[in-house]
Each structure stands twice: as C-alpha cells, then as structure tokens.
C-alpha cells in the first residue's frame, strides 16, 4: 500500500490543548537511552512540564537550548539527574504498582515456595533496595501478611529495606503516612494494618514493622553489597536511573549474585535494565515485567 498513512499527532497538553513540543519527545528518548526509564507518549506532557520547570530554574528560554544542554554540555549528566528528579517526584506511594503485587502473590510466590520447599530453612528473604521513606517495604510486608495463613503458612518472611539517605530511613521507621502516600491503599489494608495518629495521618502497626529491618546502605559500596546474600526477591524501583552506565552495570551484577537461583529483580514500572546484564531473563507477567535469575533446573543459565 502507498505511504498515505497519517503521521501520529503529537499528544495534546491536558487543559490547554496545545500540542507538546517535539523536542520533548527527543528528550524522552534520550532519558530512556541513558537511564532506562520510559515515559508513555500520552504522559509526554509530564516530561514537558518537568523540562519546563528545569528550564525556568536555569533561565533557558527554548526547548532546543535545553536539548543542547542535555546532549552537548559537559555538565549534562548532572542536568539529566536533576530532570529525572523532577520526573519521578511524588511518585512514591504505598501500593504503587498493583500488577507487581498480583504477579508476586499469584504467580511468583507459589513457584518460589515450591522450589524452596525442599530446603531445611523455610525463610523468604526480600530486599527493598532504595526503599526511600518506607512505602515499598511496608506494602510488601502487608501483602506477605495477607498470605501468612495461606501460601506462607509455616514460612518466615524477612524484609530488608535499605536506602542511602539517613533521613529517609528515619521517616521510614516511623511509618506514618498521609492521604497522598495512602491514595492507592485499599480500605481493607488501611483498616487492618494501620492505626490513626490524627485526623489526617495513619501509622503502620508494629506487626507489620516486625517483618522489616531498615538500614542505611550505599549500593555502590562493593564490600557491603557482598554481604547481601540469599535474596529471593529484590525490589529496586526508580533507583538505578540515577547511576551512570558502569556503576549501574556493577550494581546489577551485585544484584545477580545477591539473588538465589530462581529469584526475581523488580524495577520501576516504566524502567528497564537496558540489556546491561544478559544473565537476567526478562519475564512478563500481566501488566508488569521482572528480571529472573534462572533456577538451576531450568538448564539455560
């Protein structure tokens, strides 16, 4: 057929209805290539908004000049990181990715537990690497508690939550959250696993906290990374995006060693490993993906 196909229109900015500047699409592609985080076309206006906020701070007038700063300027890495901070800001909340939780409870846990059932020690180890203010490890802990009378009956669950930032760790330990962080938390979980602090805030119950050990860890600290052994699951969402190529590759290799055979690494919902480690296998679950360290019996390592 002839090439009369309509080129896809640029998405419109909600409210104003103005088409998004095509330079922002180029920036979107650059962000994926360098950091492995993908912004959907329909969310391009968010990327545009983040760029515009950075441009204002830097007193840059045109999107083209900003593109030049991100590609040609020697300080481009720093600026890319600043931009990513703008893009991922406010993303953290409890129950951020229901498809990840579904995959975990419906597909991965039954498989993992069966694999491990022959072992003497019935412990499941989960690492939240870059746990920020605790939303992720608490979400995991509550979901594991939901399975405690079912899949996980007779199993011990250990959740190790680490972050580089001391202040984040302190906030995480307190486990107090407001409406915004709890916006995706199902009512059932709010009633079952939280107590009210005041009219606006809820605190995670001690039974949930009991499952988690919080500590400070720098993912670039090789000697400490070697100690993080025997993990069945690693969650590292929107953390690797801040690392440059070689450091990212190093962290991923550590994660590979830290995992048990048959274990999984989860990244953020729109994040990819950029094929930086070919021993991990990309696995699809409904609505989400994870990286798998093939089990010994699967042959193809």
């Amino acid at each position, binding site marked *: 057929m002839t090439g009369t196909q309509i080129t896809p229109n640029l998405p419109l900015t909600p409210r104003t209805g103005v088409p998004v500047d095509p330079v922002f699409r180029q920036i979107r592609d650059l962000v994926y290539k360098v950091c492995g985080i993908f912004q959907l076309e329909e969310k391009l206006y968010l990327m545009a908004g983040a760029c515009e906020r950075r441009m204002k701070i830097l007193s840059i007038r045109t999107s083209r000049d900003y593109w030049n700063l991100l590609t040609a300027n020697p300080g481009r890495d720093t600026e890319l990181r600043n931009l990513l901070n703008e893009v991922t800001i406010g993303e953290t909340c409890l129950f951020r990715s229901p498809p990840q939780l579904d995959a975990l409870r419906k597909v991965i846990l039954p498989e993992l537990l069966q694999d491990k059932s022959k072992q003497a020690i019935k412990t499941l180890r989960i690492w939240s690497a870059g746990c920020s203010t605790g939303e992720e490890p608490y979400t995991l802990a509550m979901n594991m508690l939901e399975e405690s009378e079912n899949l996980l009956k007779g199993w011990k669950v250990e959740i190790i939550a680490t972050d580089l930032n001391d202040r984040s760790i302190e906030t995480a330990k307190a486990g107090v959250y407001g409406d915004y962080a709890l916006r995706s938390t199902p009512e059932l979980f709010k009633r079952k696993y939280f107590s009210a602090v005041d009219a606006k805030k809820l605190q995670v119950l001690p039974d949930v906290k009991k499952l988690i050990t919080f500590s400070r860890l720098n993912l670039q600290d090789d000697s400490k990374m070697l100690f993080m052994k025997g993990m069945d699951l690693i969650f590292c969402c929107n953390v690797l995006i801040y690392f440059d190529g070689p450091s990212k590759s190093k962290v991923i290799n550590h994660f590979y060693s830290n995992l048990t055979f048959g274990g999984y690494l989860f990244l953020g919902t729109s994040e990819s490993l950029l094929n930086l480690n070919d021993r991990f296998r990309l696995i699809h679950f409904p609505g989400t993906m994870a990286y*798998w360290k093939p089990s010994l019996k699967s042959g193809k390592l």
Partner: protein
Amino acid sequence: MSASMTLNMRERVKDMETMPSIPAILLPLLELLNLPPEHVKLDEVVRLVSCDNAIAAQCLRVASSPLFGLAESPKTVKAAVISLGLRRVQTILLTCCLGDAFPTHNWPLDPAVLWKHSLGCAMVCRKFSEKLATGDGERAYLAGLLHDIGLMVNCIAFPKEFAAAVAHASQEQIPLDVAELDTMGFTHSDSGRALAEKWHLADDLIQVIAHHHSPNEAEAHQPLTALVHLSDLLCRMRGMGYGYYEQQKVDLISDPAWEILLQEHRELAQVDLALFSFELDEAVGEVCELVSAIFGGAKASTK
C-alpha cells in the same frame, strides 16, 4: 485432540447453518493487500468501500472520530479514505468485514474484548515485524488480526461448550486454549482452521490460525506463526487479553517460537524487549479507540 473429535468438530463447523460465509468484499480486499504498494489504486479501494453501505458508513464514522483529529468530518467515502490513509482504511475494512461476518449475539466472550485482542495483536505483529529487517508488516498485521477467528467460530457454532470453557478459564485464571482443551476437547485453533479452510484463506494464514499456540507444529510458514504466537502472548501480558487475569509467567526468549524466529531473523537478538513492551502500551489507547469507533456502541473494556 483425537481423530474422532476432529471429525466431529469439523462436521459441525461445516454443517452449521449459522457458520459465517466469507464477506463479499473480503476476498478482493485480501487480494488488494497482496499487491505491491505502487499498484494499489485509490479508486479501487473507494469502490470496495462504497459497495457495502454498512461498511461505508462505518468508515465515515471512524474517520469522523476524535482519534484522527480532523478539523472537519469527511462527507464522502473518497474524502474519508484520503483523510484516513490507505493503511488505516485496510484495517477498518478488514475489521468491519469480520465484524459483519460474525454477528455478536449472546457471545460467551465480550465482543469488544475479543476485537481489542485481535486488533491489538495485529498491531503488535506489525510493530514486531517492523523491528526485523526483512519482516512484512502488512502480512503480519493480517495474520495477527485473523489468528483468533476460531474464537468467533466457537462463540457462534459451539456457544454452550465455549461458555463453559470461558468460565473455566477465568475461574482458574488459565490460558483460554488450555481451558478449551480441558472442557471441549478441541481449541479455537482447530475450529479456526476449519473455517479458514472453508474460506480458502492463503496457506500462511491457515497455518497461523491453526498453530499460533504451538508454532513448532506448523507444517509451513513457521516464522510468521512464531511471530504471531509471541505477539499474542505479549498482548495478553500488556492489557489486551481476554478480559480476565491469566496467572502466567511468560518467558519469551526461552519460548521455542523465539528460536524459530531467531533462525530466520538474526537481528531479533538485538531487540530491546522491555522497550518494545513499553512502546506497545502506548498503542493500547489507540486500539481501544479504534474498537469503539468501529463498533460504535460496543465499549472497549480496559482489561
């Protein structure tokens, strides 16, 4: 499937009075699709579209939908064809033809969900094929669009048995073909093949329809069948499945279909599968809009 079962199913497909006959404009349309681009005449397409009032009306309706962002709704079929572009017209025509062939009364599966899966798979097949140096995107699109016609056959020819299979699949959260085999003894690949042969579809399409769940069993055209198999899985994992949660772990690279495709297209090894999956998510919205534009009232479920 046992030989007697095959015979029984085939007899039922052949004898069903309600069995869809091939829509009049489908065959000339398929021929047109096989022509090299420079030989396709706009007027010929307009003529095909115009010869069926219902389809012409659907084309006009789709062309007027906000999806295409046209400043003014086209008034004539020709204007609609020009503003939509030939490629989109093909899609719409094929979809409308098939939609007309299969009256959707009391289907055990939501027709909008099924169309979303078929159109979604067609789109994924085309995009997948475009990642490969020697892929034929349009052929792949057609193969993707038609791969599940057996489900429509099942909806019409075996409504009771198929309803039980759908219920079993969604309750157990298992793949539909597995549930069909459990409850009916044959799958939509078998009934689809019976219809494809009745319609005298090209051999590559017959192979895809018959073997998209086990491409290594295809007697010919294994690479195309493998491509549709992988695209089908990807669709079901990226929100364009059959409307229920499939408790499934999909490892595309260790799937035998991957190896088949890799033998034919070495460049497959370079495809960034994660990025490809993200790109597909972008197209889901468009597929939903297309489904609701073509089928008007039928709302496209987001599942």
